[in-house]
């Protein structure tokens, strides 16, 4: 509008002049038809157009830049790939060199024999020709022949099809016809087995051929090598081809041919390097082509599109030999590597690392227990509290190696240290026994509650009184819904969770000593096992309270009574096996039926304080006052892992260990007021 007004003003001021001008310029103006509004309009129009075009250009530019970035990325990817392949080739070259050295040593003496052996059997006519040539050239071409032999072997092994061999051999023959070339440098091509392209093979062959020696020598050598190789191949073929799957995994980037070539060769050559020479020969007519191919074989066989590089460092003569050695090397390498991988995978599965640290107690954590299904656990401490922890609620921490967890709930009720803990089968209730002689029942709140919620007195589920001294052992039987407890008053009591008359039975066991730990015998239905501070360990019948089996612990004489104390007894979930942890650093295994000692082993550097068997019955976890927990495989009784955890307070370090019944967690409770969970 301003423009319009300015137009008008201009128009107004200019009009008189403009009109005159126009009239004067009518003719030209008629042609051109300029007017101020028109001009302005036009200018605006043009400006708008320019703007539009500019924005379009901007857009295009952005697109192109994106495209450039993308292509750059791709290029980088390709470069990385190339670098990897190059690296691989170099590794193989190196391996080949080593193999050559080995193979050379191995084969050097026997090569002559082989050369002599083959001609008579296969091609008598050529013998004459071959032999002198062979003899002449043997010394110089021994290794080369060997390498060709090996190459043939490998080809054979991988089932290098005849058509390809024919094709190659034809190509080679034509090339040979054209060029005489040195043989020697081909060997280098063999080790470069990775990432070879069929397309590359031809240029390699060409290259290779260029460097050949005199054709005649070549042919002679070829034939010698052919025979030897055929021998080798036959031998290998007779052995059958094994595909080493590990190798396959190792080199995914290779082409199929090369891949297959390598893998069968790998196990075979390793076995047969020494035997190859001695093998009898059944000529396979197909392999006739191979000799021709042989000269070019290192390259043509596809071992080395990357052989370009191999050429330089290749140096040595024995492509086949080197290849054999290389194959050997790769066998071992790959076998080892895969072996390592599989073993590390297994180890990885078995290796537990600390994941969660549960800090909140003020004094040593005496017992802990996992929830049957959820990732929650309860700890009981000498500070007279129990705490409920939810492993999914971790404190955000800067140090991410181990996550801190804060408790969800604190159970207060004991008037003194809480010594033992048991969880009901469904995870709703837990039972704790303390130094005050009471067993308290707790209704476990949901693990998602707010820790600072109002106090709910329903959590306190009552207490079981009966014991008159510190309660040291508690165990719960899921199916029977019974609780078994042992205390320093020398009694073991059986309780039912029925509130009305909880105490079912009291077993007076003082003649065996003071009970230190109890467990139900899971394998049979009606027994429990109890361990004492006098190193006795007895299986009792639940109904009658009479000892059924007395585990034969009277083995060591002369050791002090304290050192023979059994700190913990656990019963295997499925086998008739009882495992005890002793103050004298041993873990002992007992047969339930006979009471005999199955095995005794020194498990720790200090007394063994706690044992736990995993729910499948395959592993045993033991904790000790030497600040370490150890994981044992039950069938081999071997220690598969040791974890150092917790610090000492007085002379105590680890009080309890536990497996999660359904999730892969293990936990340890320490005298340093911490509990740790490992995954």
């Amino acid at each position, binding site marked *: 509008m301003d423009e319009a007004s300015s137009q008008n003003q201009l128009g107004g001021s200019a009009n008189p002049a403009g009109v005159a001008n126009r009239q004067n310029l009518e003719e030209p103006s008629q042609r051109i038809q300029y007017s101020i509004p028109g001009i302005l309009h036009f200018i605006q129009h043009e400006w708008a157009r320019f703007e539009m075009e500019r924005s379009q250009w901007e857009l295009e530019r952005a697109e192109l830049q994106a495209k450039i970035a993308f292509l750059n990325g791709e290029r980088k990817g390709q470069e990385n790939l190339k670098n990897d392949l190059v690296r691989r080739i170099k590794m193989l070259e190196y391996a080949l060199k080593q193999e050559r050295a080995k193979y050379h040593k191995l084969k050097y003496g026997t090569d002559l024999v082989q050369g002599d052996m083959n001609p008579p059997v296969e091609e008598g006519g050529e013998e004459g020709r071959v032999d002198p040539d062979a003899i002449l050239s043997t010394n110089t071409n021994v290794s080369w022949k060997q390498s060709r032999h090996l190459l043939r072997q490998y080809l054979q092994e991988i089932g290098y099809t005849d058509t390809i061999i024919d094709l190659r051999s034809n190509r080679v023959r034509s090339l040979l016809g054209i060029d005489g070339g040195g043989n020697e440098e081909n060997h280098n091509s063999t080790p470069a087995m990775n990432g070879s392209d069929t397309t590359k093979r031809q240029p390699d062959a060409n290259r290779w051929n260029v460097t050949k020696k005199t054709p005649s020598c070549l042919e002679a050598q070829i034939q010698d090598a052919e025979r030897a190789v055929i021998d080798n191949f036959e031998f290998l073929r007779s052995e059958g081809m094994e595909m080493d799957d590990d190798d396959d995994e190792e080199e995914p980037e290779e082409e199929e041919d090369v891949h297959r070539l390598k893998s069968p060769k790998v196990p075979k050559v390793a076995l047969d390097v020494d035997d190859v020479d001695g093998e009898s020969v059944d000529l396979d007519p197909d392999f006739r082509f191979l000799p021709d191919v042989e000269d070019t074989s290192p390259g043509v066989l596809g071992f080395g599109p990357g052989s370009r590089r191999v050429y330089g460092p290749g140096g040595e003569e024995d492509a086949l030999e080197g290849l054999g050695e290389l194959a050997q090397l790769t066998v071992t390498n790959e076998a080892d590597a895969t072996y390592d991988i599989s073993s590390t995978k297994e180890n990885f599965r078995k290796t537990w690392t600390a994941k969660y640290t549960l800090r*909140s107690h*003020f004094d040593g954590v005496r017992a802990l227990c996992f929830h049957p299904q959820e990732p929650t656990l309860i700890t009981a401490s000498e500070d007279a509290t129990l705490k409920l922890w939810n492993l999914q609620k971790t404190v955000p921490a800067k140090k991410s190696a181990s996550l801190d967890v804060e408790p969800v709930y604190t159970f207060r009720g004991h008037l003194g240290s809480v010594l033992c803990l048991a969880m009901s089968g469904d995870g709703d209730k837990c039972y704790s026994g303390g130094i005050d002689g009471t067993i308290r029942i707790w209704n476990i709140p949901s693990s998602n509650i707010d820790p600072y919620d*109002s106090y709910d007195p329903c959590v306190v589920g009552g207490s079981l009184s009966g014991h008159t001294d510190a309660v040291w052992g508690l165990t719960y039987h899921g199916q029977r819904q019974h609780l078994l407890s042992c205390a320093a008053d020398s009694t073991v009591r059986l309780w039912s969770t029925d509130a009305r008359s909880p105490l079912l039975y009291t077993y007076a066991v003082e003649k065996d000593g003071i009970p230190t730990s109890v467990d139900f015998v899971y394998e049979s239905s009606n027994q429990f096992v109890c361990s004492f501070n006098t190193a006795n360990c007895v299986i009792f019948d639940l109904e009658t309270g009479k000892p059924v089996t007395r585990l034969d612990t009277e083995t060591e004489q002369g050791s002090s009574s304290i050192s023979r104390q059994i700190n913990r007894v656990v019963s295997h979930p499925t086998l008739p096996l009882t495992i005890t942890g002793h103050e004298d650093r041993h873990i002992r295994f007992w047969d339930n039926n006979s009471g005999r000692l199955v095995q005794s082993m020194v498990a720790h550097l200090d007394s063994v304080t706690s044992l736990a068997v995993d729910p499948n019955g395959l592993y045993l976890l033991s904790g000790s006052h030497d600040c370490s927990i150890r994981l044992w495989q039950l069938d081999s009784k071997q220690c598969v892992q040791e974890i150092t955890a917790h610090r000492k307070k007085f002379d105590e370090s680890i009080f309890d260990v536990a497996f999660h019944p359904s999730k892969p967690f293990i936990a340890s409770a320490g005298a340093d007021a911490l509990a740790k969970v490992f995954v």
Partner: protein
Amino acid sequence: MKMADQNVVLRRNRPGTKAENFYRWCDEAYEEMDSTLVVQQYIQQTIRLDHNNIDTILNAPETQDEGVWKYEHLRQFCMELNGLAVRLQGECQPSTCTQMTATEQWIFLCAAHKTPKECPAIDYTRHTLDGAACLLNSNKYFPSRVSIKESSVAKLGSVCRRVYRIFSHAYFHHRQIFDEFESETTLCRRFTVFVTKYNLMSRDNLIVPILEDESAGQGESEA
């Protein structure tokens, strides 16, 4: 328990130990202790010897770092205060003690929530103790038990202040429980001496007349 043949004292409470035999080992001199939890061991040992001997308990050995000394004592206080909380748990109902009060002047708000909340007394007690446990054990403020960061020393004072309120509430509202507990453990007296000695709280806040043996105290005691 001494192992006579080896003459090595193993300070352990093994499974099967009777309650009366707990901690029945000979004391260890402070200088000879060599674990990382030396201070806690030492404090617990002196308390077990005589819980009335406050001065001995509170006097730090000469080479001891004062920050760590205060920290470990505070841990011990919070741990022992659990006994008082357990006793209160039965009697201090939200219906009777709807707020955390001591004398009529003060109502204490629970700091364990995002915004301070007027929790009933039993909730206040539990939350304060739980919060103190979290703070004193938190990796952020107290990552180590053998050295205390300067910045975290200030936290000790606030913990003391909140924890003291449990004493004052128990004294003024649940006197019998308080007296029983105090005769067993002398905890409140020890705590008062502790905070005055290390200046962790201002004197105005020390409203429980524990140090004046006879007088009834300034505040009115409410049933």
